[in-house]
């Protein structure tokens, strides 16, 4: 087979224009998800073979404009301006052409080889919207191909046009978008000047540069400043701008935008004939219920509750399967490997560590399934609309609620969900308070301690109180952050409420899978490494003397002829656990526990809790497991006896239990969450601050609770 020629095809368009669905429809499963360099904006790449070509597809972030106000806009603009794409496919929503064409006007100015994909054509036909394609093509100077990503129609024709445009077999004369006379005169002058700089105008369209200079665009300025033409430009530009501003009597950039909108509106009016104006659409009907003054909030709460129920109820079953699978794997590997350090490392360290995290996969899949469904139907934007006021009061954004609610399940996807917040301050403030939303892994700790120290009749109320306490701390912290370190304007709430659409199963599953895959990749790398480290500190150094001593005692018990086989096994197991506890005390983790005892003494905690809390840095469930080991009571599962033991231990009382619950609730989440926090924040400084803040909050509030509890209980 002969080598296919590669060409890069960039997809550009508005959010909600169905760009990603079209991308999926074309690329199928040849999909790669990564990040754009330096920013937390997802980058989708894929390819498709067509005729003699391999079309490398790049899905640019969806934007309404390319003025470079957000990272998304900058990415899209740079990609096209720097001619990284051979062909640009501008995806427009055929049912909302007027707004979509605004971005088209800006793309045209960059003068790329372009094909317009008029998406959602099935809906256009259903709504009886008549579009004059010939006219539209003439106005835009690009071929316009009707497609439907959902119905998969017109894809072949689109690819055909892309290839033919690439081969220069389609050339439509492209008229420039004309601006007001005053602006055109200034543009002519600037363009003339820029064209004298041949290398610069070969790289960037001089007209585009001229427009951008008038718009006071930083990127255009820096380009111009690096070029020889700047010497002449520098003198002329302020004069041109001053005269222009004087003539227009408004800001130049504003007028340029107005003219673009005017062009989009004109093109729309000339080419689109709609039969039905002002008719109440399905979206109106749904919104009049969903956004109703009285029903809006309860419905929102109900939908969130439902997602939770689905996530945690249905997730439990496959979670059990995964747990038994990893237990089975552990057993098999144990049988294969000789007893010793290697076996312990692989089974107790790697398989147990990664298995513990992968165990959450069903929950995560279901949560993301629900969230992607809400996102692609259009409800998510409404949810942000409904709760924005409450969130704005505490200094956050309507969009903060999704990550915060997700945080009740697991902080890892919650941090990832913060990507929808574009403003750095809003995003970081939300991420900082997520750890206070009590995650699923903390639940066993709460249950154990509440069960041990409080009457059953009160336990549900106390558990509810614990969750509420976390929320209060989160709200107060958010307020604190937004009035101190993340001060400044928060992100404006200017958001499109997309028309309701029923998403295809395929696109929802695809979105879910992409998220899940990212999570799994982390389990394979960061978490694996962390598991090994945790195993090391819990198992080394080994006290050989203890091993010998207990080995002998266990042997003695086994040889004992007076007892039954059952009693023998029990006694041996007790001794083995005692040995494990002693070894733990001797290990780095145990020493750390002793080392930090002075710091946690004021909270009423002793060194044993110090070890449990240190181990809890790896994962919160480990707190219970570790306490089990230390109390020499065998592995988890026998938590009842652990409960009894805790209750009878004179070193503990309800005040300490409450302080411990508060500490576990607030202190730094597990290492995998922290790793994800670091990756998403992208700033070491922030990660360190996040560790410091959660630790401080945990200590101070535990101390307060301990003191108050000792006084009253």
């Amino acid at each position: 087979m002969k080598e296919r020629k590669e060409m890069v095809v960039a997809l550009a368009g508005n959010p909600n224009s169905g760009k990603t669905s079209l991308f999926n429809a074309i690329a199928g499963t040849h999909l790669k998800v990564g990040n754009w360099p330096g920013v937390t904006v997802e980058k989708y790449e894929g390819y498709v073979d067509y005729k003699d070509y391999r079309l490398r597809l790049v899905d640019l972030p969806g934007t309404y404009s390319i003025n470079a106000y957000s990272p998304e806009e900058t990415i899209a603009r740079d990609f096209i301006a720097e001619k990284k794409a051979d062909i640009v496919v501008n995806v427009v929503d055929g049912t909302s052409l007027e707004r979509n064409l605004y971005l088209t006007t800006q793309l045209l100015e960059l003068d790329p080889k372009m094909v317009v994909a008029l998406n959602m054509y099935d809906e256009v036909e259903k709504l009886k919207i008549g579009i004059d394609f010939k006219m539209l093509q003439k106005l835009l100077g690009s071929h316009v191909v009707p497609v439907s990503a959902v119905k998969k129609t017109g894809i072949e024709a689109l690819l055909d046009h892309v290839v033919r445009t690439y081969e220069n077999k389609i050339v439509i004369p492209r008229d420039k978008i004309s601006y007001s006379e005053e602006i055109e005169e200034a543009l002519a002058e600037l363009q003339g000047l820029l064209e004298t700089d041949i290398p610069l105008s070969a790289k960037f369209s001089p007209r585009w540069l001229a427009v951008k200079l008038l718009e006071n665009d930083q990127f255009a300025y820096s380009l111009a400043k690096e070029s020889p033409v700047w010497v002449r430009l520098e003198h002329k530009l302020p004069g041109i701008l001053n005269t222009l501003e004087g003539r227009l009597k408004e800001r130049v950039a504003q007028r340029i935008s107005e003219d673009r909108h005017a062009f989009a509106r004109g093109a729309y009016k000339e080419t689109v004939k709609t039969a039905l104006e002002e008719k109440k659409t399905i979206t109106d009907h749904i919104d009049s219920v969903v956004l109703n003054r009285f029903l809006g909030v309860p419905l929102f709460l109900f939908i969130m509750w439902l997602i939770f129920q689905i996530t945690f109820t249905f997730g439990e079953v496959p979670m059990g399967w995964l747990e038994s699978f990893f237990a089975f794997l552990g057993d098999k590997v144990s049988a294969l490997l000789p007893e010793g350090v290697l076996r312990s490392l692989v089974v107790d360290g790697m398989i147990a560590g990664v298995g513990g995290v992968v165990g959450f996969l069903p929950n995560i899949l279901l949560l993301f399934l629900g969230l992607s469904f809400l996102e692609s139907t259009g409800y998510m934007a409404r949810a942000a609309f409904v709760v924005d006021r409450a969130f704005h009061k505490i200094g956050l954004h309507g969009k903060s609620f999704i990550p915060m609610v997700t945080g009740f399940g697991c902080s890892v996807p919650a941090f990832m969900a913060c990507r929808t917040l574009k403003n750095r301050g809003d995003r970081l403030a939300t991420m900082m308070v997520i750890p206070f939303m009590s995650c699923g892994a903390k639940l066993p700790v709460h249950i154990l301690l509440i069960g041990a120290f409080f009457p059953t009749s009160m336990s549900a109320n106390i558990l509810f109180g614990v969750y509420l306490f976390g929320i209060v701390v989160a709200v107060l912290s958010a307020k604190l952050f937004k009035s101190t370190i993340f001060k400044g304007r928060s992100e404006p709430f200017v958001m499109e409420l997309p028309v309701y659409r029923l998403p295809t199963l395929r696109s929802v599953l695809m979105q879910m899978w992409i998220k899940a895959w990212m999570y799994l990749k982390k389990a394979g790398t960061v978490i694996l490494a962390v598991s090994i480290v945790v195993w090391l500190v819990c198992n080394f150094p080994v006290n050989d003397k203890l091993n010998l001593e207990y080995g002998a005692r266990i042997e003695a018990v086994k040889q004992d002829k007076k007892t039954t086989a059952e009693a023998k096994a029990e006694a041996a197991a007790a001794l083995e656990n005692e040995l494990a506890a002693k070894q733990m005390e001797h290990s780095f983790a145990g020493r750390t526990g002793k080392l930090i005892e002075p710091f946690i003494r004021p909270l009423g905690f002793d060194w044993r809790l110090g070890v449990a809390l240190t181990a809890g840095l790896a994962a919160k469930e480990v707190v219970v497991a570790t306490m089990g080991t230390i109390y020499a009571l065998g592995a988890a599962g026998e938590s009842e006896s652990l409960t009894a033991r805790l209750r009878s231990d004179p070193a503990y009382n309800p005040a300490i239990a409450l302080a411990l619950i508060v500490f576990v609730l607030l202190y730094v989440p597990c290492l995998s969450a922290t790793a994800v926090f670091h990756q998403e924040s992208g700033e070491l400084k922030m990660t360190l601050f996040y560790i410091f803040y959660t630790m401080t909050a945990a200590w101070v509030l535990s101390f307060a609770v301990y003191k108050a509890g000792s006084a009253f209980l």
Partner: protein
Amino acid sequence: MTDAIHISASLEDYIEAIFHIVAEKQAAKPRDLAERMKVAGSSVTGALRILAEKALINYTPYDIITLTPAGKAYAEDVVHRHEVLRDFFVNVLAVDYKAADEAACGMEHSASKVILERLVQFAKFVEVRPRGGEDWVSGFRHHCEKAAQLVKMSELKPGDKGVIMAVNAQGEIAQRLVDMGMVKGTPFKVLRKAPLGDPLEIQLRGFLLALRKQEAECVSVEKKAGK
């Protein structure tokens, strides 16, 4: 819009100067500032410290100075006041540019928003009604009253229709609003308020847009009669 920070006139001059230097060179050094303001280096340091305390600039001694987003918004406001005054002096009062610029520099700190808006109105009025006469002043009053019929988008009620007349904001918010199609002459309809009373949902250019009252306050509109 409500989180107003107030700083003294001389500090306003500083922040304005920083704004211009940053526009030229990306970041300012205390020395540039001293040169531009024609003051001693020591007084610059004092002023910078106060501005940094108010979180308007990023500044540590011996380092470059940049504006925080709040500082940028503040500086843009000062510059805007300066420009309005200067243009009024040049275009209406026919003062020469340099003198107008200097006068604007002195007056920009004290001119209130209302006065500035009236000056802009007046300049426009002069253009439409160039001839004098007895009714000229009352004509201007009428012109202002007509302008006062413009309301903020945030004051409209669900069901109201209107036409956008101007976006009175700067920087990112202005750009966001304009990018979403909020430009002069755009008809729109207020659909509803969110259940908690904020944000608003409006319909324009064939799509639905949600925005907070805070943002809607920046948009002046002409209300259309009837529902």
